[in-house]
């Protein structure tokens, strides 16, 4: 029995067996996981198809980049935030418009907008923007198409035009651009088949960001020329971080159609702030339409996100569009950009908290504080504008001298453009809170001067 005493008790042996087996399992899991992560880190993608400078179809790119493609496809989501995002509104399809779901109408939400845009196609149909996936469909079927014949120019930013432009131009991007601009929309529409796609922002060989839109290539050259940089080529001279804003700025900007050729132009020659753009339009003598009620030579501002962002603190800190709208995410050992482009308010965790270490509720309330204040001031500016339009109509009916009416119409044009600049900009002031307030304050001041101008004698003082 003495020999038995020196033995390890049976239950210890069983315990040791179980523990060492568990340890072996844990270590195996660990080593397999490490091997998998290393493999992921080594191969960011597998090339299963050849992608060339002619590949427009994003599903082909998606075979090589399934994670990015998966995110890209999610832009079909319709989610609201307090001041943006879209809600799916069912509608009965018609022959002219087969859509069964659209976004909510902004004109119904705020009828003052109809007054501001009286006589312009926007007063017929203007809905909250939906995700990237819908850009081509929504442009094709908006009622604005029936209100006024639209040019092929519009497709510059509502379709993947890089390959179609080059095809039309016989290899020359700008020649194709000019050709499509001159076509009626319906004809140009036949040359394109996809909304914005991979090739619009990525070089198919290196996957590096690349600007493909002619109007931005020209526009940014104007901006840089004003800063003393001659012959700026964005694709060779911009930094990687700048490109993370520039590829978005290809389209999220203010623009106009110059001359009878409907040449798409970004009005940046004299600067990119709202009042600098207004001064540019004044000096060019350009107006989008004649206001149906007052006869003012009116201007329509269009989604100037890039211009507004560039005046804000985030731009100053070097934070690009993609940092918040396509934040990095970790997938295994890979770091990818979330290609589900959307409001950062729907992704506060990755979009904001990477830099701002506060809880989601706190960050959301900071954004809403800015937006609520901007919205309040936007409403005041809109009330002021509607009042001026009413007074202008009354003054015209009462036979006020033409010179006073002319001055007041000029003030209406200017105040209206600055107000629309904030209204059309998709962030309700967040991209540059102080700038948005400054622009609205200037708008209200111009509207006030318009009302004074109608009184004539007061304006002399």
């Amino acid at each position, binding site marked *: 029995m003495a020999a038995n005493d020196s033995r390890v008790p049976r239950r210890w*042996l069983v315990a*040791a067996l179980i523990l*060492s087996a568990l*340890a072996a399992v844990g*270590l195996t899991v660990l080593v397999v996981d*490490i091997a998998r992560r290393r493999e992921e880190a080594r191969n960011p993608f597998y090339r299963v198809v050849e992608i060339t400078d002619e590949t427009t179809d994003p599903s082909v790119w998606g075979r090589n980049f399934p994670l990015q493609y998966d995110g890209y496809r999610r832009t079909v989501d319709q989610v609201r935030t307090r001041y943006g995002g879209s809600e799916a509104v069912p509608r009965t399809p018609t022959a002219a418009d087969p859509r069964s779901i659209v976004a909510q109408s902004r004109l119904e939400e705020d009828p003052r907008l109809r007054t501001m845009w009286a006589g312009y196609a926007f007063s017929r149909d203007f809905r909250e923007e939906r995700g990237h996936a819908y850009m081509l469909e929504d442009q094709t079927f908006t009622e604005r198409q029936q209100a006024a014949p639209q040019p092929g120019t519009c497709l510059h930013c509502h379709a993947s035009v890089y390959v179609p432009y080059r095809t039309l131009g016989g290899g020359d991007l700008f020649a194709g651009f000019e050709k499509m601009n001159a076509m009626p929309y319906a004809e140009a529409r036949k040359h394109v088949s996809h909304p914005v796609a991979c090739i619009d922002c990525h070089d198919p060989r290196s996957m590096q960001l690349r600007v493909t839109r002619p109007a931005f290539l020209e526009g940014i050259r104007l901006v840089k020329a004003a800063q003393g940089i001659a012959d700026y080529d964005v694709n060779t001279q911009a930094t990687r971080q700048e490109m993370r804003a520039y590829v978005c700025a290809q389209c999220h900007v203010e623009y106009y159609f110059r001359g009878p050729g409907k040449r798409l132009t970004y009005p940046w020659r004299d600067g990119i702030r709202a009042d600098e753009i207004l001064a540019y339009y004044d000096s060019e003598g350009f107006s989008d339409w004649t206001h149906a009620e007052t006869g003012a030579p009116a201007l329509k501002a269009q989604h100037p996100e890039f211009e507004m962002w560039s005046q804000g603190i985030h731009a100053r800190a070097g934070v690009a569009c993609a940092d918040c709208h396509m934040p990095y995410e*970790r997938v295994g050992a890979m*770091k990818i950009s979330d290609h589900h482009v959307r409001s950062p308010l729907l992704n506060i*965790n990755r979009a904001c908290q990477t*830099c701002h270490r506060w809880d989601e509720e706190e960050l959301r309330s900071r954004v809403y504080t800015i937006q609520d204040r901007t919205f309040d001031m936007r409403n005041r500016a809109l009330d002021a504008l509607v009042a001026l339009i009413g007074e202008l109509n009354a003054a015209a009916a009462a036979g006020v001298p033409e010179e006073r009416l002319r001055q007041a119409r000029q003030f209406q044009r200017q105040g209206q453009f600055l107000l629309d600049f904030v209204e059309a900009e998709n962030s309700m002031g967040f991209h540059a809170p102080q700038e948005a307030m400054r622009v609205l304050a200037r708008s209200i001041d111009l509207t006030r001067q318009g009302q004074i101008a109608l009184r004539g004698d007061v304006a002399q003082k």
Partner: protein
Amino acid sequence: MRWAELLLAVLVGAAAGIGGYTFVYARGASYLTDDPAACANCHVMREQFDGWSRSSHRSVAVCNDCHTPDGLVPKYVTKARNGFWHSFYFTTGGFPEPIRITPRNLEVTEGACRTCHAEVVHAIDAMPRAGGALSCVQCHRDAGHLH
């Protein structure tokens, strides 16, 4: 019991073998050093490592200077503790991102700030303040690494 002991010996040997291989394959020895690159071995700390390599502190402090306490034993206890939980969570997944420092590790870092910058801290802390001591990293978040 002879057969049972033989089986046990085989299993323990297998576990030790797998453990040894894992240690070498996972560059386990690198974790015993002060090399900052070791902290980015597992990919999750890549952003922090990249941030540090562009920070003001890159030439005066490595990861361990701010994230482990003074003294050989406390240092390796902290390394072992964090190493185990990092391996556990990064292997099993399901941790929240962006990753955040734990309260215990924050104390270690705060201590490191106060050790190197003792003179400055001493002058600031002389002023009594309601709600406890000031936190250095509350304001100087990007000193070590942004993100």
